[in-house]
């Protein structure tokens, strides 16, 4: 089965150094990603969900090879690429960002933006343009769009251009960092549906980062819930949604209003506390917010336990709750 695993991380860490104001001495670390073990199978969509500050975007940047980790291992297609990325793999990992307005250079026509990755690879201009047309069609645009500047496009069209640019190098793995959170409901539906179709057509593997659990439930096969730099729950989506094991997952799901006036919305949300300062915590990171926390939770960090096959949780009390 191991051969089918495309992306694998072991104890992946990314710490940001915090320095004092004047002397610039190191006074601490922000543990944005703190010991993440993850496996993404070929053809799978893994949704990484969590609130702002949970470290999900940092993990995305590390997996997109745009940020060097502090520690740990990152294995892609069986190769250790933690510290260096072989040239032939560079085009195989791509990223799509949240904001389609800042992802495209306003001074370049769509044509230049889309063919750029191919020119870098040594394609001739003519070949590159032909391929650009093919990919624009794949994302629901056409040849005409080559000639326009980004400001002439709507948000949805821009995101399509960004997706075409990511796809044009024929990648295997795409990190999608909140690709629809700035779009309207109707445009979001179009882009989500498009991403789902392209994935099957092109045999892609996605890491889909989102704060929106409903979007995650639609797009993903597997859900990983991140809290304070760690994965606290991971599993097949229907298992996670129908039987969440971690109290944090439970509170996240309950926070969503059901789109039905007759359903009763009863969020189970513990009181607010900051998750930003996690420098000196020994126990479970969620203990301060957790309504069920016991002594052991503040003393010892829980391991990631496999409860049923493929469904893991990082909680001491999962079978008591």
């Amino acid at each position, binding site marked *: 089965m191991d051969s089918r695993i495309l992306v694998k991380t072991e104890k992946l860490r990314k710490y940001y150094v915090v320095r004092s104001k004047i002397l610039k001495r190191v006074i601490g670390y922000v543990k944005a990603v703190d010991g993440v073990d993850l496996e993404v199978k070929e053809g799978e969509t893994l949704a990484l969900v969590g609130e702002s500050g949970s470290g999900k975007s940092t993990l995305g940047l590390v997996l997109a090879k745009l940020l060097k980790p502090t520690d740990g291992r990152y294995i892609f297609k069986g190769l250790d690429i933690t510290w260096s990325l072989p040239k032939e793999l560079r085009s195989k990992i791509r990223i799509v960002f949240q904001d389609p307005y800042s992802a495209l250079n306003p001074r370049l026509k769509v044509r230049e933006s889309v063919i750029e990755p191919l020119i870098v690879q040594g394609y001739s201009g003519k070949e590159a343009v032909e391929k650009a047309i093919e990919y624009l069609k794949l994302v629901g645009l056409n040849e005409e769009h080559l000639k326009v500047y980004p400001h002439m496009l709507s948000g949805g069209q821009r995101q399509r251009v960004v997706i075409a640019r990511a796809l044009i190098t024929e990648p295997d793995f795409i990190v999608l960092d909140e690709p629809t959170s700035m779009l309207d*409901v109707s445009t979001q539906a179009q882009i989500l549906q498009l991403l789902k179709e392209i994935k099957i057509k092109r045999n892609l593997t996605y890491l889909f980062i989102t704060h929106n659990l409903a979007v995650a439930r639609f797009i993903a096969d597997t859900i990983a819930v991140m809290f304070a730099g760690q994965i606290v729950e991971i599993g097949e989506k229907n298992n996670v949604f129908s039987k969440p094991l971690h109290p944090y997952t439970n509170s996240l799901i309950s926070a969503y209003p059901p789109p039905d006036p007759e359903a009763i919305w009863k969020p189970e949300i513990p009181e607010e506390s900051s998750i930003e300062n996690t420098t000196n915590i020994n126990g479970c990171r969620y203990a301060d917010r957790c309504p069920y926390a016991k002594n052991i939770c503040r003393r010892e960090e829980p391991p990631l336990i496999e409860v049923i096959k493929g469904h893991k949780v990082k909680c001491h009390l999962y079978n008591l709750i």
Partner: protein
Amino acid sequence: MKPLEIKGLIIQYYVNNQWVDVVSNVDLDIDERGEILAVVGESGCGKTTLGLAVAGLLPSNAKIARGYIKVFDKDVTSTSNSIKIAMIFQDALTSLNPLLTVGEQIAEIDIHHFKMSKKKAFEEAKKRLAEVGLPTTFVSKYPHELSGGQRQRVLIAMAIAMNPELIVADEPTTALDVTTQARVLILLRDLVKKLGIPMIYITHDLALASQIADKIAVMYAGQIVEYSNKYSLFKEPKHPYTQALLSSIPRVDVDVSELHIIKGEPPTPGSFPRGCRFHPRCPLAFSKCFVEEPIPRKVSSYGYVRCHLYG
């Protein structure tokens, strides 16, 4: 005397040397104190402009070209009437003064509106904070010391402090995390109900509207296309746009394998299509829709739908 009555409202903006319709022929009302009306729509549909107009905060390049907005029978555009309307904006950080403490900002309202002494106003401010679930010690904190959710609570406290006749809330929680959003919204809903303040709640999120509001108005291209109580709107959406919107939202409570797609993109002010404004994207459009603009048709005691399929 209705808490809110909007009739035949047209709002125009002056852009590129001409007046452009942003809100066209809107009729809306709030029937009783404590009722919440949600205005739902995508960006550019005119919902924010509508909210600003109700609050009397239209920018200088905009005007009410026709129709009226009345709050308890007083016209909001007339300067001779003093109407107390509170507005809660999306971005709590820019709505608060960074140089004043939370207490000073809440007390200011009592000092100015009710000519209260400074000391008494501070005592009142503490009460307001408690009402929105914040510790009273927060009076001496500055906005930057608070989290997003706490700031939004301060805004709610300020909105209530002036004892308003109407609250206009424009996406007050979109910048917040879901768990914070849930807490702040439920607080706002329950406070408004308890104090009997009518509220317009502007949002792009139909699911939120279903939990917060009593009535929902769906807005598209400057018009209200459907207006109804929330139960019938969700049970039997009449307008094709409402139907499409409802089936294009991903859900957290049930597994959806395919989302309904509304083709194309919403039109922008100045380029609204002729006939029914939704016809280029409507799967059910027929010849009449291309040429004739549908008028609102009554579907229940107060609701209406703007669609040729119903008449």
